[in-house]
């Protein structure tokens, strides 16, 4: 029973990680239709930001707290640069965007290798986040997993509120639903695109900070995550945040259950088979955005 509950929590926390890495992509890919293969490298940038900050800020807790906003800005700025310099010139050419951003991803990886060296680097996690909460029945819940879950939920909540309530959010939704109509209504679509890209990439940076608590920090860490992130967004449905949220947790629990009953490799196969089957049934994803746009 305790194992079962432990597994359920593991599944939810895998889901939280998936959600956190996919959230930024849900914005740039889901809302703007830009296939950004360099999204994983923005995650990497967030992780390295934590590492760099820790060289000067000694307290592990403080440096993590500082890293969250700084990584958001660092990755967001990288995203804006990418958008202004390359992606803006390639809108409506998805295949070219895919190749160009993949090239950018390789360049950023090599840059990380040149600056930080190819071996992984280490960061110190605050002691609080390396412990766990003991529940009755010998069950424990890891603090770093709780932290990531909280961070993911907070990010979703903030993003949802921003999209619903703020003027910027309204403009973003207007551009997603009908770009031309938004433009003729006086919305500066280019500026909205840039802002959306800043936020989406910034969220990747946030994910990078969180991942330093769980996994390796190295030049190739982004490539391992990018596929999972795309899976979540594609299955969740383009243009909707709630699809990504539900799918992230569903895939997390499926993965954890499959892995518990079989092995990690087989669980991955189960997840992929489930995704393929699901997309046969609903190629448009879990939720779709219904608009009157002709595009």
């Amino acid at each position: 029973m305790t194992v079962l509950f432990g597994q359920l929590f593991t599944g939810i926390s895998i889901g939280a990680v998936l959600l956190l890495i996919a959230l930024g992509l849900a914005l740039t890919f889901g809302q703007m239709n830009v296939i950004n293969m360099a999204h994983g490298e923005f995650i990497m940038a967030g992780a390295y930001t934590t590492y760099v900050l820790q060289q000067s800020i000694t307290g592990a807790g403080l440096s993590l707290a500082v890293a969250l906003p700084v990584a958001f800005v660092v990755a967001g700025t990288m995203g804006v640069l990418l958008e202004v310099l390359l992606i803006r010139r390639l809108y409506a050419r998805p295949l070219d965007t895919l190749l160009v951003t993949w090239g950018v991803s390789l360049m950023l990886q090599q840059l990380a290798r040149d600056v930080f060296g190819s071996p992984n680097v280490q960061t110190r996690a605050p002691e609080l986040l390396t412990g766990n909460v003991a529940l009755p029945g010998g069950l424990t819940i890891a603090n770093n997993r709780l932290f990531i879950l909280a961070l993911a939920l907070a990010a979703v909540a903030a993003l949802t509120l921003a999209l619903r309530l703020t003027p910027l959010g309204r403009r973003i939704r207007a551009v997603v639903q009908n770009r031309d109509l938004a433009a003729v209504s006086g919305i500066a679509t280019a500026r909205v695109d840039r802002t959306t890209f800043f936020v989406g990439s910034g969220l990747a940076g946030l994910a990078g900070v969180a991942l330093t608590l769980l996994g390796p920090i190295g030049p190739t860490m982004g490539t391992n995550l990018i596929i999972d992130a795309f899976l979540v967004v594609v299955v969740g449905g383009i243009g909707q945040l709630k699809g990504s949220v539900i799918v992230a947790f569903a895939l997390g629990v499926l993965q954890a259950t499959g892995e518990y009953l079989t092995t990690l490799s087989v669980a991955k196969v189960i997840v992929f088979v489930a995704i393929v089957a699901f997309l046969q049934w609903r190629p448009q994803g879990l939720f779709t955005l219904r608009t009157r746009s002709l595009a």
Partner: protein
Amino acid sequence: MSLFRGRRILAGAMTLVAAAAMTACGSKTTDEGGATGVTADVSGDTVKVGLLNSLSGTMAISEVTVRDSIMLAVEEINAAGGVLGKKIQPVGEDGASDWPTFAEKAEKLISEDRVAAVFGCWTSASRKAVKPVFEKNKALLFYPVQYEGLEQSPYIFYTGATTNQQIVPGLDYLKSQGAKSVYLVGSDYVFPRTANKIIKAYAAANGMTVLGEDYAPLGSTEFGTIVNKVKSSGADAVFNTLNGDSNVAFFKEYKSAGLTAAGMPVVSVSIAEEEVKGIGTQYLEGQLTAWNYYQTTPGAANSKFVAAYKAKYGADKPTSDPMEAAYVGVHLWKAMVEKAGAFDVEKVRAASDGITFDAPEGLVTVDGKTQHIAKTARIGKIGADGLITEVWNSGKPVAPDPYLKTYPWASGLS
């Protein structure tokens, strides 16, 4: 329409890649040398040796350090007058973490550069890829990394540990500490699976229970479930044969699940000083590793090796077991050649038995029959400073036994 065109472009690209791969495979089947073998070119006042390591790709992290220590050994030998009066001229090739490339570059070093010996390879996959090339050309490879055993090529000298010099002593140590049950965690490829087969046979014969066995694909970084399984098994210890990035995720998860080195120690066979740096001592402090050499190993030979390495490559660079084994390989080859009085491969092989070298890890002796070397087995504990300190050693060099013939419990293996 545009999507359709995109797919056609993709299909075209795939075809190109496939064609390129087939060409690459084809080129390694050239049959130069034939049955007589290629003789090394030693006519000048230098002798060429080949250095075959991955300088790019996923294995570069590890293999570059091996290349560096081979170069250090070559420089030392040249400074002392060379081999048989000839200076060593190293010829470097990049295996690019790609096994067919290793085979191709090995062929090039042997047939075109006509080197007297090749030093390199890291993964068992790359060794298995070049093995037929060396055997066909009757050329020599010095392989520096601990491996899964059950191999004995006449044209390879294995200067890293075989299973009875690393894994078996690791199990002996756990047994002596009172461990009655173990949980096995490893990456999903040949080395961990073979190693775990051996561990299970050992456990069955020594009254140990294997409570579980889990494999993660290489590069996997999600260990929530595996650590849950390990924890609920209540094993006395964990035997870890994970490789690469997976170790980072595994140990972070291990610590946050509340598991400790005191409560359930993990014995790892693929974590050396360099890897400790990348995982973080916060997560590794107190955990155990099984190797034959640590940077902290006492002795004049090691102080000299560590000082020379740091002087050449930087004070922050640690030395590790595979680097040491590669360094030893070059010096052993020199000793073999000098005993044989020639660079000829068959004469070098014949002269190899009983060659000794005062290595950083202590005295090592070449066993001419298996072409492995007798090494002292060591268990170390990872400290807060990232260095590994020895907690146990075998007292004397352990004779290599790649097929575990001297262990009755291993009779059913291979």
